[in-house]
């Protein structure tokens, strides 16, 4: 599983949010298991 630049992940246990600031291989893990990738935001452009 690779990490895409700018994607956000949420820990399934503690709710911490991770932002990928450098792309790379590997898995975002928290509390011993993979964090879930958050869906893209649907908010319209406001500025």
């Amino acid at each position: 599983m690779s990490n895409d630049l700018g994607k956000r992940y949420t820990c399934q246990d503690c709710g911490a949010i991770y932002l990928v600031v450098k792309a790379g291989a590997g898995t975002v893990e928290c509390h011993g298991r993979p964090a879930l990738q958050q869906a893209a935001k649907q908010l319209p452009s406001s500025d």
Partner: protein
Amino acid sequence: MNLAIALAMAADGHGDRTAVVDAERSLSYHRLHEVAETLAARLPDDADTVVAAGVHGTALAASLFGAAWAGRSFAPVNHRLPADRVASLARRLAPAQGVAAPPYLAPLDRELPGSWSAEDLFADTGGRGAAFVEEPVRPAVVLYTSGTAAEPKAAVVDHDNLLAYLVNTVEYGAAGTDEAVLIAVPPFHIAGVAAVLSAVWAGRRIVALDGFSPASWIDAVRAESVTHAFVVPTMLARIVEVAAPLPSLRSLAYGGARMPVPVLEQALALYPHVDFVNAYGLTETSSTIAVLGPDEHRAGNRLASVGRPVPGVEVEIVDDGHVPVPPGATGRVRIRGAQVSGRYLGDDPRAPDGWLTTGDLGHLDADGYLYIEGRSDDVVIRGGENIAPAEIEDALLRHPGVAQAAVVGVPHPEWGEQIAAAVVLHADADPPAPDDLRAHVRSLLGGLKCPDVVAVVDDLPLTATGKVVRREVRRLLSERVDIG
């Protein structure tokens, strides 16, 4: 974290794309990244802040990110003020590095010797390669509030506030390669700063205009195939008057002051292919905290609402004792969330629980839509009745002869205050008499909200974002009422 991460990620993810273009030059994300690094290396050690006067577009993006890279504050000041006022604002921010567009360089340099011109920002002096400051201790941005009711205050916004806004509301790199956003709002307003940051985060090309006229704005939309734009209400009113076709435009966001519903209705009818977005926010909240989206605009029944809170932001309406009131009831708007700063230089009025109580009055409906009724300072109290000016101003604007309207309270010996309206008439219309306008408002809103005095004026005193300077209107109308 540091805002500079947004630029580093843009250069990393899509560095060859155009970041920003103006009349002078065009910068890719790679080039903007280089310039920011170079500027960070050139900043004098004792300069806590970069004070910018009249820089926009490429120079605005460069100085904003250059300051952030070095962990210094960025403070764009209102260059349209008289030179002595600009000097006094700059003095409050010293020790600082100045940067100015040519007309403002000499006066700024007198206050901050060694100030750079906008052109100087792009000199290749080397000094690249240093990483940005990871955890800056200084605020990211210092902005003087518009001060429609009192003297301007210097609001500070931290890196974490602005990054929370970006991460919660804008999808990184989501803009298509054909997308371009036209920025014509003043650089010394939070909307001008947030627009740069959002565009860099989204990967959307910025087209920057120095100042606004309807003709130059429309020309830029067409010449650059602009897809997105942000305007303040006074700009939209003037664009609608020209009624030019804008086929490339997909999304038009607006904010900065209250949008008159009649202007919005005209714009929606004129541009049926455009997604309209109302963005409500404050300097103190890192810009937008509530959004009314395109579908709600087309449904048409909530045009007076500023929408619902964005992710990560809570909004409540409270009474004078800071107790939340039920849906539909009017009170003070208070806001909480990671993007809320609510601090000023030398003053931190935030509550310990994180709520920022604003000076805005409004209500939430049963579905959570926020309606702003005006500043609490602007309410007219006539014979014990609280009357919000907004509704009366919209009613006046529904008269075909009225171009602009401002309603204020002026002293009255018996009622405490009376309702006074200043109106600007359309030049080409058959001019209505003040009594015609009073009858028009009475027919729409009833006698309680009918202005006692209507004065025709040549223009209204406005801030750069189109907010009416009400203390000026109040002074003007008080004089007129005394004479009358």
